């Protein structure tokens, strides 16, 4: 593999990792507060659609992003009402949200644009413009440093936002009072309740943050990574993000490592038909399945053990 191809693969790794990273951090925050969320996929899909639709109509990608966040937060609130207020099954609610998004995006897209469930292609200001980092132009010809810097330059703003969200999430969870309470709610809600803090409030807060991040993931998908919405465009990324979250054992920095690995796998699978490692031809399907296989291996505890927050998945019932 020559240097240019290598740089290209790394470049697309960053792009492909971005929606995964947003969604992964979204799931991480929700699950740290004790709310399982397998509806990441659906929220991302709904956000992707509305972001592309509004960006197309208004011609302004940032209005699209806001719309994407709004719809994603709305779906998060449905999940919140079902799993926090009505103490329903969080997993079933997540499944429902995924299908709701898969169906309703196509129904509305067909009604609005009559293009078989897609939005028209986005051009100009309706798409996210690449952001050239300072000196990228000047450094381009410098050997080694130029191409390496080039990998990091020229992405949409949300790519940088996603990677900045990693230290931000870490700080929020581990260095603020809100974060301490949020983690406590996911481990031992009764103790938090005894301290006079609203478990319900904390959990709704976490679910709302999750919605914002999923909204960013979806908006980037349709206006940054692609130029428009197509049916089912999230294509399992919400589940890969879930896998990355488990892979990272619910820790933000590790989450970044996991999504970069999964992004790399996708980039390589997109670039090559099959890949040879030590004389063994690895078919492309293995590359596609690898994130899922790795997650199962981690879950099985053969390589370290993935232990979710203790109160995850169970609704909190106040004692009377």
């Amino acid at each position, binding site marked *: 593999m020559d240097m240019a191809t290598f740089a290209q693969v790394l470049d697309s790794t960053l792009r492909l990792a971005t929606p995964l990273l947003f969604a992964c951090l979204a799931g991480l925050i929700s699950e740290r507060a004790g709310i399982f969320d397998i509806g990441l996929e659906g929220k991302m899909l709904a956000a992707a659609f509305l972001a592309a639709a509004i960006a197309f109509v208004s011609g302004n990608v940032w209005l699209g992003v806001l719309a994407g966040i709004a719809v994603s937060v709305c779906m998060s609130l449905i999940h919140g009402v079902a799993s926090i207020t*009505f103490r329903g099954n*969080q*997993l079933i609610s997540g*499944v429902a949200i995924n299908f709701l998004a898969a169906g*309703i995006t196509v129904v509305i897209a*067909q009604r609005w644009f009559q293009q078989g469930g897609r939005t028209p292609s986005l051009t100009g200001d309706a798409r996210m413009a690449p952001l050239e980092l300072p000196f990228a132009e000047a450094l381009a010809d410098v050997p080694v440093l130029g191409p390496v810097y080039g990998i990091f330059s020229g992405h949409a703003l949300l790519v940088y936002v996603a990677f900045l969200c990693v230290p931000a999430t870490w700080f929020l969870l581990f260095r603020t009072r809100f974060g301490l309470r949020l983690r406590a709610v996911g481990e031992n809600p009764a103790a938090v309740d005894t301290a006079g803090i609203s478990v319900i409030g904390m959990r709704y807060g976490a679910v709302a943050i999750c919605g914002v991040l999923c909204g960013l993931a979806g908006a980037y998908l349709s206006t940054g990574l692609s130029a428009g919405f197509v049916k089912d465009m999230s294509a399992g990324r919400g589940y890969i993000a879930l896998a990355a979250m488990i892979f990272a054992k619910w820790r933000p920095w590790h989450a970044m490592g996991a999504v970069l690995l999964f992004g790399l796998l996708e980039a390589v699978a997109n670039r090559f038909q099959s890949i040879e490692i030590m004389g063994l031809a690895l078919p492309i399907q293995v590359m596609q399945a690898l994130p*899922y296989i790795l997650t199962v291996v981690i879950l099985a*505890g053969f390589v370290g053990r993935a232990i979710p927050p203790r109160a995850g998945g169970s609704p909190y019932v106040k004692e009377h």
Partner: protein
Amino acid sequence: MSTKRIPHWADVTLVPLLSVFLAFVISAVLIWAIGESPWEAVKLMVDGAFGSSYGWGYTLYYATNFMFTGLAVAVAFQARLFNIGGEGQAALGGLGVALVCLYIPWPHWTLALLGASLGAAAFGALWAFIPGYLQAKRGSHIVITTIMFNFIAASFLNYMLVSFLRPQGSQDPSSPRFPDATTLPKLHEILGLFGIPFSKVPPVNISLLIATALCFAVWWMLWRTRLGYQIRAFGESEPAAKYAGISPARITIIVMLISGGLAGLMALNNVMGEQERLVLNAVEGAGFIGIAVALMGRNHPFGVFLAAILFGFLYQGGAELALWTGIPRELIVVIQALVILFTGALDNMVRIPIAKLFAIRRTG
């Protein structure tokens, strides 16, 4: 949970019916919002699904798929295991059917059906066994592992079709056609024996009878055998089941084997009965619809039977709707989502008001 008591009959009829009613009302609002008439839509759907033996044939064909996957999810739910892997298990069942039909020279369809059933059930069960084993022995969350296994199944099937089963020179990632001796009798042939005329077009076939029989068999297994008792006891309370000498690991693995086997058997209907070859994405989401069917049917095999027919109606009616109006087929996915949401997750929203009503009636 609200501890207010609801009479059993209301729990099994009123709660699911009200949930479905809510789902339908919201869907009607959606249809209205996209500028179509909900009333016309319902008329079109009912007419398309039940107005002719052609419509009935498709409705029952889809219902057959959903009976298999609905039973699969319901059995697992009885042990309080959420098997989201029906999609992957049914896909693997398809591979089992394809291998059995392609590589064994069957003299007659009856024998082929027997062989294919074993193949389908074995492959589906195997695909559910791994998540079941990992849950039982290593504590891996079954929901996550079964989701992962759906994706692994899709990649694996893609690989098998492209690298092995696809005939040489073919671009299409699908297996060759199965031999004629493996063709299953269609419903019109079976009804023809009794002199009942039925449309020859729809793919509904003998698998419908198998699925119906399985509804009964699963009911028998759950409520009339020792194993069924153990499964239900385990689902009610794991500590109590343990105290009664039931091994949680054993029950988890057995339930997942049964569940995966049932999902795998769906391939009899779609792969062997309809396509008569293995194609990519043959399951088309039927594994997921099983979740809605099981929830709506209250995890009871007879409930599953009825809910499967309702979803068969939605599927066939939805296809007609897409044909004649501007409403795409995905409307059915929305209805499916709402049914799952109301019957599965917002259960208490429906249940608490009903419980209050009964409480008022009792005291008043």
